[in-house]
């Protein structure tokens, strides 16, 4: 589903975190949000589904302003994976089942369990589905949280560093799955990432944020050495394979 962010501003008690952010995400599109630590990537994602209440600006999901939606209404449209996840003595299956909460009225139905089971199969998590999540590794827990967002059946996925603690195989698997879901359904995704090459490889467009403001929005073949220097303050070289660049930082 199309998402449009218009003039979004947000401030924490003392610090202006985001200033005048505007961009849009089309259907079937993955937008990666990149920027240095503390630039406001996580804050931006949290503002998008009103985990944080924005001060100024508006966010449209489809044609609806999220301010006019209830929390459950937002949860039915937008799935969110936090950067840090807390654990409890809950089985992975039940933790994933939580993603059905926005759709559940009185109690979980057979359909909820089936959706949950299908996603678990899809992510090859069958062996860990009955283990307690406080005994999972960081990467396994992250997969559980992504699975939870997927069973929510959202139209928009908001992922805060979804591959932060995953090994290469799981990174590729998760990002491929997100790509498949976005391509095959009326879903769009916004994810914050640290690895610029991962972003170039899987995302359609990249939003560079610096000090709470958008520095540049570019397609993958529009990235320049200057953009990266301005955002991160480092020198890189770009090497082209097929039609998009691979970014390699200068060694000295």
């Amino acid at each position: 589903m199309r998402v449009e962010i218009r003039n979004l501003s947000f401030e924490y008690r003392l610090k202006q975190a985001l200033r005048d952010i505007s961009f849009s995400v089309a259907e079937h599109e993955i937008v990666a949000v990149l920027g240095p630590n503390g630039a406001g990537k996580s804050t931006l994602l949290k503002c998008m589904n009103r985990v944080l209440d924005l001060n100024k600006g508006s966010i449209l999901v489809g044609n609806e302003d999220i301010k006019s939606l209830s929390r459950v209404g937002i949860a039915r449209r937008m799935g969110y994976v936090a950067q840090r996840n807390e654990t409890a003595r809950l089985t992975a299956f039940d933790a994933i089942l939580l993603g059905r909460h926005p759709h559940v009225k009185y109690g979980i139905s057979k359909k909820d369990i089936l959706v949950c089971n299908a996603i678990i199969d899809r992510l090859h998590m069958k062996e860990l589905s009955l283990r307690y999540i406080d005994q999972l590794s960081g990467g396994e827990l992250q997969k559980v949280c992504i699975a939870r967002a997927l069973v929510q059946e959202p139209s928009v996925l908001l992922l805060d560093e979804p591959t932060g603690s995953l090994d290469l195989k799981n990174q590729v698997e998760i990002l491929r799955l997100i790509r498949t879901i976005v391509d095959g359904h009326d879903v769009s995704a916004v994810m914050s990432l640290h690895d610029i090459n991962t972003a170039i490889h899987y995302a359609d467009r990249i939003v560079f944020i610096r000090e709470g403001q958008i520095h540049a929005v570019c397609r993958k073949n529009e990235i320049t050495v200057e953009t990266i220097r301005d955002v991160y303050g480092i020198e890189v070289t770009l090497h082209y394979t097929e039609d998009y660049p691979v970014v390699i930082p200068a060694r000295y």
Partner: protein
Amino acid sequence: MHIDKAQFPAEYSRYIKKKIVFLTAGSVLLLVTILISVCLGSVGVPVFYVIKALFGANDVDKWNTILFNIRLPRVLTAVFAGIGLSVSGVAMQSLLRNPLGSPFTLGISQAAAFGAALSVMLLGTGVMRSTGSAAVNITNPYLTTVSAFIFCLLTTGVLMAISRLKRSSPMAMVLTGVALGSLFQAGTMFLQFFADDVQLAAMVFWTFGDVGRTNWNEFFIIMATVTVSVIFFVSQRWKYNALDAGSDTAKSLGVPVERVGIIGLTVSSLVTAVIISFVGIIGFIGLVCPHMVRRLIGDDHRFLIPGSCITGGIILLAADTLARLILIPHVFPVAILTSFLGVPVFIFLIIRGYKR
């Protein structure tokens, strides 16, 4: 998203079934404990007579008096007080995101003690008498209860006001509760310092939690409050599970985190206030029972809440029955035993390094 292979996970069903078996076994154990407790005491009543009497065939007057006027209200009060304290402990632990959450953490117990002491001191509701089991009687139990209850509510109110005013974190609420608790404790000590012997005895006696203080009417008040609150907490089970995943995630799942927290804490404070006002301070049930159940069946609130209710009922009742039996014909206040029971379990939890 498609459900590619629509098949019901058999292992998950088995897992759920195991939990249900555990809860059923617990309920049966609770019923058995109730039956045994009713029979035991300074005058034994045969089990078969109790069962007959409960179905209306009661023909021995002496036993009837013991059963219906003394034992049953006491036993049932113990069960429901245990359920209420335990379930509010679960809720506080979840909502405050703190494994130490219990009526003591929020200063509610201390407030009740202060309220009772105040009524003894100012309204003169405590008088020495030397009759049977209780050397000190509270002449006007209702006044003492009401006063204790008012101070519980006051504490709850202050906590709610602060959390709403500053939109504070659970951590701030715990700290406020601890601070209020020590304030009321100081207040109680202040009153005790100026009290005469009889008043002091009455104040101290009140703080010894004892489930034998209630008559049928008071029991029904406790039962109604506890039942309503258990239904409420069960209805919140998924929300509490979501809170365990962190407040950002919970919000993204459509849970209004602040509202759920404030309402849940208010309900659990109210239940605690009602129970403590009628039976005095009973420690550790609210803290220990939930942790025992967490260890046994995990943190899933679908099972944790009913599990804690059952365990709370069993443990308080068992402790009270023991308290009635160890010094026959004297009745030992149950609160002393629950702490003896609570501390070792608690230390065990610390040594095990239980992580919530």
